[in-house]
């Protein structure tokens, strides 16, 4: 059953939430040992939450649109009293004394938080190999990565550990693993979903979003977590248009642009390019108009991103200093304690980005690196806005390639960073984008097509996604 069907059956009293949860727990029990997709399975809490949902149904109350639907949380989302690691040693044993707004929203809608999914440490990575607790493996081929950083969440949905999952996307961390695992993954407009309770990586880029096995399921979860939150100053105050009601409206007369630089770029695999073009053809057949569009500044997205995101991260991660929570490695004075704690607690990628970001912000280099990157960000946003004057949505690959082998890209950071080249520009602009599966490549691994839309145009984006999903091989 998909999420929609589970919720409908539970609400109708045809199946109990408890049965649903037990079913998924059994699947996890059988499969997580190999995949390492979940760092923590909250069995007792999930059962208790399911029983509450069942009690509500029995009492004639409606538990909500996610009634009895298990939802996996990326382990950078806070849940009161539940160990939260961010895939790092530095948070050792930390249990947040509060709950993230999105987790509250899921629970209020009758959803069942099922466990915490593996991730690249502090969401920094594109393969989930940077987790301090071992890599997650791709459910389609366990010698390959699931993508990252929300690789655990994507793998959970692909392996049917849960019908739905939440991830976070700073430069592609939802969409890229969705593509590599063959599921649907959505990065909403910046500010559509509250970040309160999401452990920050890069605050001006981070956004929480849903994973689902289908576009409809992802829409269900997106509508539950969208909305204004007074605890997040960057939350959009306007009333948002839900995406579910118009999912089946089709694409007749929509104008679709295929991004030339990202689709025909040098690093894009032929089969991936073919998938994007086939999806475009399918949209055309369904009544949309297709054109090729150019966003020249997106070529500089990677460079801008790898200044802005590490700069913000270097500041966001300063607080892990051994004073208030998490790991402490003692030292003869405060500075020594800080240094030892951070050296022992952070993995190589996190250290690399803290170093890069600290450097980019430091005196004498700010203008050449961070300042310039912020201006490039303006250019990229302008490019998108110009193209969106003539297009309703855009298409591109999600990831230039299908899932790669574990260890293939760990030697050189730049090679790994290239995995995000198609997804990063959207984060810089703050726009929404999603990945929808489109068959498999020559290696039988899933391929994803990325659909991009202007700010707050998620409803249109989802209509397109539904058509692509139906047409996909």
């Amino acid at each position: 059953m998909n999420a929609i069907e589970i919720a409908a059956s539970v609400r109708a009293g045809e199946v109990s939430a408890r049965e649903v949860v037990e079913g998924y727990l059994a699947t996890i029990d059988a499969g997580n040992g190999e995949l390492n997709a979940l760092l923590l399975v909250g069995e007792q809490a999930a059962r208790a939450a399911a029983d509450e949902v069942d009690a509500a149904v029995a009492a004639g109350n409606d538990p909500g649109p996610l009634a009895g639907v298990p939802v996996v949380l990326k382990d950078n989302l806070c849940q009161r009293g539940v160990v939260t690691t961010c895939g790092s040693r530095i948070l050792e044993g930390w249990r947040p004394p509060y709950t993230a707004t999105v987790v509250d929203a899921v629970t209020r809608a009758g959803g069942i938080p099922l466990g915490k999914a593996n991730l690249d440490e502090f969401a920094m990575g594109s393969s989930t190999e940077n987790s301090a607790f071992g890599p997650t493996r791709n459910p389609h081929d366990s010698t390959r990565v699931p993508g990252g950083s929300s690789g655990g969440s994507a793998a959970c949905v692909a392996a049917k550990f849960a019908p739905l999952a939440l991830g976070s996307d700073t430069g592609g961390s939802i969409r890229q693993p969705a593509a590599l695992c063959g599921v649907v993954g959505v990065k909403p407009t910046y500010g559509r979903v509250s970040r309160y309770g999401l452990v920050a990586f890069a605050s001006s880029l981070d956004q929480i979003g849903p994973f689902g096995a289908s576009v409809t399921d992802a829409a269900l979860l997106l509508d539950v977590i969208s909305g204004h939150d007074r605890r997040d100053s960057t939350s959009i105050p306007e009333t948002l248009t839900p995406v579910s009601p118009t999912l089946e409206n089709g694409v007749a007369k929509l104008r679709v642009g295929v991004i030339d630089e990202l689709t025909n770029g040098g690093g894009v695999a032929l089969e991936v390019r073919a998938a994007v073009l086939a999806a475009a053809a399918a949209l055309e057949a369904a009544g949309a108009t297709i054109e090729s569009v150019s966003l020249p500044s997106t070529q500089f997205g990677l460079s801008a991103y790898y200044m802005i995101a590490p700069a913000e991260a270097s500041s966001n991660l300063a607080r892990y200093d051994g004073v208030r929570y998490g790991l402490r490695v003692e030292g003869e004075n405060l500075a020594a304690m800080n240094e030892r704690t951070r050296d022992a607690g952070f993995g190589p990628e996190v250290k690399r980005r803290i170093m890069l970001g600290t450097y980019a912000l430091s005196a004498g280099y700010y203008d050449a690196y961070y300042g310039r990157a912020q201006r490039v960000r303006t250019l990229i946003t302008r490019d998108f806005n110009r193209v969106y004057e003539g297009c309703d949505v855009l298409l591109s690959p999600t990831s230039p390639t299908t899932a790669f082998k574990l260890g293939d890209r760990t030697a050189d950071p730049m090679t790994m960073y290239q995995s995000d080249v198609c997804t990063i520009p959207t984060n810089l602009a703050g726009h929404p984008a999603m990945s929808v599966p489109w068959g498999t490549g020559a290696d039988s691994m899933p391929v994803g097509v990325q659909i991009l839309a202007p700010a707050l145009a998620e409803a249109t984006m989802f209509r397109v996604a539904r058509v692509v999903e139906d047409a996909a091989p």
Partner: protein
Amino acid sequence: MADENPTAITRAEVEHVAGLARLGLSADEVDRLTHELAGILIHARDMGELDLSGVEPTSHPLPLVNVVRPDEISPSLDRDEVLAAAPAVQDNQFRVPRILEAP
């Protein structure tokens, strides 16, 4: 790559930055990071090709202003719960090793 362009970042700069970031790096880590950061910084220089004169920096993707909350008190956290998470506590306060330097 650092060898091809030794001016991208020096070992001494890496050590200085590690100090600012309070990262106690080993000599090996410093070597490796000098090399890796040089590669990333050289790549980032492609932005130098762009004419950015008159382009305002974007620090925020949203045009929001004046997001405020009313000046009303809400309950604070339970102190014991907070202190339970701390590595070292004394007299209901967070204990840290001697500080050496004033802020």
